[in-house]
């Protein structure tokens, strides 16, 4: 009886409806406020560009969850997916499976060996070097530097850290694909700068703060604290404030937590490197829409769209913060 019902159902009509929006999905690598800013960019593009309807998924616990979300999206017949692969190399095979069934692009982290159509991202190593540059500006006379990060198992975290270390030790630049990573439990002594420690907190907020506190206790001559994940610099700032060493220990960070931006404005922190996350979201939607509309010109020959990064210091903080506010407000939409 299925043939009869197929005739009478309006299935054909709906498929031909030109107003039907492309259903696409934006998949992150976890739950983090960073991704909410990206989602803001997604919403913005959705509103501005029209013709697409985008789901945003935050896999709660790592790779298994990301994989099953992608599988479900495929099952659902989604037309395009932008994903930030948690482990690009390990996932290549699976990503190819995905790419075979839908339009796949990567953002934030690339899977260069996979069949993804385009990668939207920044060079985290370069961004790390830029962060090292900020540290140099913050403490031009040199001194002890400690690094704080959530987890070093994420490639971007390792790249950033390596960038900072290489820059401070004035090592030559490494190519993104072939970076040699330094050990974690090691002190790196350069001419002016010494990287005394790297502490991880596993995303536990109180650990992030107490790591900062303990570093202040341990390294009496600490000159600069570098936070590689969004929540790290604000925790460092709190610890410094409570130790009565505001201004004495400089802070340089990554990302754009409001507390950090405020501190830059107030002169308590030196600066931060922003990847302008909304651009990931915006560009991802723009790419997918273009690809789905059959407009191949959106994809550059290099298959790489560099959204770049921005060094934010007291000089440009007002302008940057205004942009962030605008983006957040623009994209805010309950999911």
């Amino acid at each position, binding site marked *: 009886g299925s043939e009869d019902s197929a005739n009478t159902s309006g299935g054909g009509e709906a498929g031909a409806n030109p107003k039907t929006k492309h259903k696409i999905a934006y998949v992150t690598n976890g739950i983090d406020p960073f991704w909410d800013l990206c989602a803001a960019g997604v919403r913005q593009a959705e509103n501005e560009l029209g013709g697409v309807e985008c789901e945003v998924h935050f*896999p709660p616990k790592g790779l298994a969850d990301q994989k099953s979300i992608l599988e*479900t999206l495929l099952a*659902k017949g989604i037309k395009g997916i932008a994903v930030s692969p948690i*482990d690009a190399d390990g996932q290549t095979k699976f990503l190819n499976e995905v790419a075979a069934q839908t339009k796949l692009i990567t953002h934030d982290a690339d899977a260069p060996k996979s069949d993804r159509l385009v990668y939207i991202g920044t060079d985290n190593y370069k961004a790390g070097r830029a962060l090292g540059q900020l540290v140099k500006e913050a403490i031009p006379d040199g001194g002890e530097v400690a690094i704080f990060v959530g987890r070093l*198992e994420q490639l971007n975290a390792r790249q950033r850290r390596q960038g900072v270390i290489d820059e401070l030790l004035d090592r030559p630049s490494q190519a993104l694909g072939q970076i040699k990573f330094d050990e*974690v439990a090691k002190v790196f002594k350069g001419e002016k700068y010494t990287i005394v420690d790297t502490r991880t907190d596993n995303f536990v907020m109180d650990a992030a703060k107490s790591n900062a506190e303990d570093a202040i206790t341990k390294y009496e001559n600490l000159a600069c604290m570098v936070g590689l994940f969004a929540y790290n610099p604000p925790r460092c700032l709190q610890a410094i404030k409570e130790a009565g060493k505001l201004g004495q220990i400089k802070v340089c960070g990554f990302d754009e937590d409001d507390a950090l931006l405020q501190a830059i404005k107030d002169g308590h922190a030196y600066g931060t490197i922003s990847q302008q996350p909304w651009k990931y979201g915006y560009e991802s939607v723009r790419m997918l829409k273009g690809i789905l509309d059959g407009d191949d010109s959106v994809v550059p020959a290099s298959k790489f769209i560099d959204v770049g990064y921005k060094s934010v210091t007291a000089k440009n903080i007002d302008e940057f913060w205004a942009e962030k506010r605008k983006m957040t407000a623009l994209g805010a939409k309950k999911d």
Partner: protein
Amino acid sequence: MNKNTLGILGLFILIFGITWASNENFANGYNMTNLVKWSSLYAIMGIGVAFVIITGGIDLSIGSVIGLVAALMALAIKQGWNPTLTVFLLLGLSLVIGLIHGLLITKVKLQPFVVTLCGLLFYRGISRWLTDNQTMQYPNTEGLDSFFSGKVGLFGQFSLPSPLFFLIVIAVLAAFFLNRTIWGRYLLALGNNEDGARYSGIQTDRLKITAYVICSFLAGVSGLLFAYELDSVQPAQTGEFYELYAIAAAVLGGCSLRGGQGAIFGVIIAAAVIRLLRNSINLVGISTHLEFAIIGLVILGGVTADELIKRIVAKRRTAQVNAAKS
């Protein structure tokens, strides 16, 4: 099949039906295959923990054991060890872990919750340390890859994933062990009344240790399955939280945390319910932020309904007795 299992089966069918009705793609081959795959993975963990729960114990460490085994496998391959040999070594390691748990619990008489909580912390820390907290890839050691995460096509996009075969073997053995062998009977007896079992000549310590060994062993198997399924390991994350899902599956599937009660089939269905819920949330398009809340509610609803049904049955039985007597 007992009454408990019927309840959870009903829940499964209900959610299955609702999801199907609200999304036509739900029943396609691709999605079904995936659902079967993830359910199998969860069910294997759940069966392991069910054995421990039947003895009246608990195992909080399995998530970390999964992480450890997965990490060590990747590490060993990287170091150039023979993959197949490593698999056996790691399964051996998980047996040893279970043995240690069991010995601490029976001989030193520590509480299972405490021992396995320490295990949870310890194995996770060791994984992170050994791998320097780096994500590790699984190279294509072809044989193992398709053994642990391959598929046998059926028709269309319907296929049978490797973990299902593992589950079938494990479930059949487990159910057989529990219901048909003397040791299974002993396990149930000691879960109900440990002293009573001991006075009947049952070597309760050995059996309890066996239960922890089975549990850790199946966690080890799961670790390999998960790792090969994902082709990669994150030492800080892989397996995190799984103990809670496994325990939830065991409880929802009819194991009482008081011990002495358990049904393998129920655990499998319960694991499938948990996976189905997640699938359903993603398919129907409910905010992923709500996922945990919904799973929590459904489990709570499930066990509450179970409890209330039991009471009604008991009441009816009283009424029957009265009717018969007067």
